[in-house]
């Protein structure tokens, strides 16, 4: 099949087909989102094996729950990340029952380049330090919106905020990060 944005069916069409038992369509959705869901889980878990297991779990659960998905103006990715969040909560609950339903902060190490040469790069070190210094909710919004390129609606859902509030937090987060970077220079 020719991979062109022009002819790729929309999520809504693929969901409709998948609901009618066309697993190939769900395969299409999977290929579209596997990468971002994996990255999303990996920054939370910081471990390849767990991230792989949970990514598979997210898509299996989503497929089973597809009948309950109602578009209502929200993109399919919002539904998918909601499932991913549930899977993460279940995972941490199983692992450490005492932590309740909270999810640990993103594992920042997992975000930095793995290449030793890159890791020594001054710019990267400055950025990492600046990221460490800003408040956790600022860090979170930058990771979700900028690094993982999640839609604003998904970020809002994850952070339990309205989309408008999330935008304001992003604005403040980038301002704060820029301030820290300028101080370091």
């Amino acid at each position, binding site marked *: 099949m020719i991979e062109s944005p022009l002819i790729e069916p929309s999520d809504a069409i693929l969901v409709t*087909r998948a609901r009618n038992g*066309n697993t190939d369509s769900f395969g299409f959705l999977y290929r579209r989102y596997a990468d971002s869901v994996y990255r999303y889980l990996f920054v939370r878990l910081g471990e390849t094996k767990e991230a792989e297991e949970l990514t598979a779990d997210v898509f299996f659960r989503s497929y089973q729950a597809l009948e309950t998905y109602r578009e209502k103006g929200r993109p399919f990715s919002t539904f998918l990340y909601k499932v991913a969040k549930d899977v993460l909560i279940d995972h941490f609950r199983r692992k450490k029952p005492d932590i309740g339903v909270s999810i640990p902060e993103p594992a920042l190490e997992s975000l930095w380049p793995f290449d030793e040469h890159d890791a020594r790069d001054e710019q990267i070190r400055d950025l990492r330090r600046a990221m460490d210094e800003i408040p956790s909710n600022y860090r979170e919004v930058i990771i979700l*919106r*900028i690094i993982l390129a999640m839609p604003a609606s998904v970020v809002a859902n994850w952070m339990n905020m309205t989309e408008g509030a999330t*935008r304001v937090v992003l*604005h403040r987060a980038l301002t704060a990060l820029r301030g820290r970077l300028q101080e370091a220079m």
Partner: protein
Amino acid sequence: MKRKESIKAELLDRAVQRMLEGKAPFEDSAQADAGAESGLQPLLETASRVRILIRARAPLPDFVAGVERRLLKQKQIRPPIPVRRKSPVSVGVRWGRHRTAALISIFTVVVIIGSGLGAASVSAQALPGDALYPVKRGFEEISLTFSFSTTGDVQLLADFADRRLAEVEEVIAQSRGSDFLPSLEYYEETLGRLDTAIKALTSDSGYAQLKNLQTRFARYAYVLSALRDRVPEQARPALDLAIEHSRKSKEAVEKIRQDRDSEFVPRDEEKSFTKESVSNESGPSSTKTLETNPETTIPKPLHTPEPTSTSEFTVSPTPSETPESTKTPKPSKTQKPTDAPKPSKTPKPIDIPKPVKTPKPVETLIPSSIPDTSSAAAATKIK
């Protein structure tokens, strides 16, 4: 102050979104000026720096392929789609779902009528991309809102699917290149809604529509296949998917009909028919039944079921069931009076050769699923 910040934040988020999509942060120079005025440029540079320097690890290709293989085997373990019965609550939900579209459409109707135009006729010829196309779709949503039965929904959605297909044909005929893709998406969306509505059919009168739908789906696949050579090559995969969707819809209807047919078998056994006559569906025994005992085939008016339940018999799978229709149907299979459509709405059985001199009730009592040859033979014999 807060309002100013939220405006800035919105501008920034929009620019970030464009940046993430690989586009220029601002759509035009006016927006760029507004962005510069709001001091967004340095923030966008920071965002861009983060994006370049920090990245999250991607999954291994082997893992991605492995999960995909497992996912594609999901068909067997997927739970069946629950059949929803319509209730007054669901009617309310339906209204809620279409309320916005309906209100917009009502407003549009008022405006158009107010300006002296016939809204329906104005928008009827609109194609996807035309300014009046949303009006046309709005009218459809209104009519759907006022349908209070699944059978009615299915009928309307089937008509809408016809229209969507006609739109695809028209756009392609106008040689708009790949511009037909939105109309194809609308077609598939309508087909998807129709698929869902069909699955919700529970009444016997609803089942009577199935043969008609099967024919429609087959025609859709045929029409789309015929259009294949007239679209640009890079757009053909999209058309192929729509063809496949149409075929799948046809298969799904076929399966429902088969399941429905098989439900009739034990019921026949309970009645006076022998197992032989059931198993030998279109064989001589069934013909013989019709031939030797026409009285049971042509019911007397007293035994004629109410028009509301006639549609039940249009889906009878075997000729041997035809005489069955003269007897009182089992309550479990008989459509409840509350669900029964009015006689005028009883779907017409299709492809059934009607005996010319047979009294009216017989026409609706002849099972529609009898192979054409046998029904013709039966009809001749009755005659």
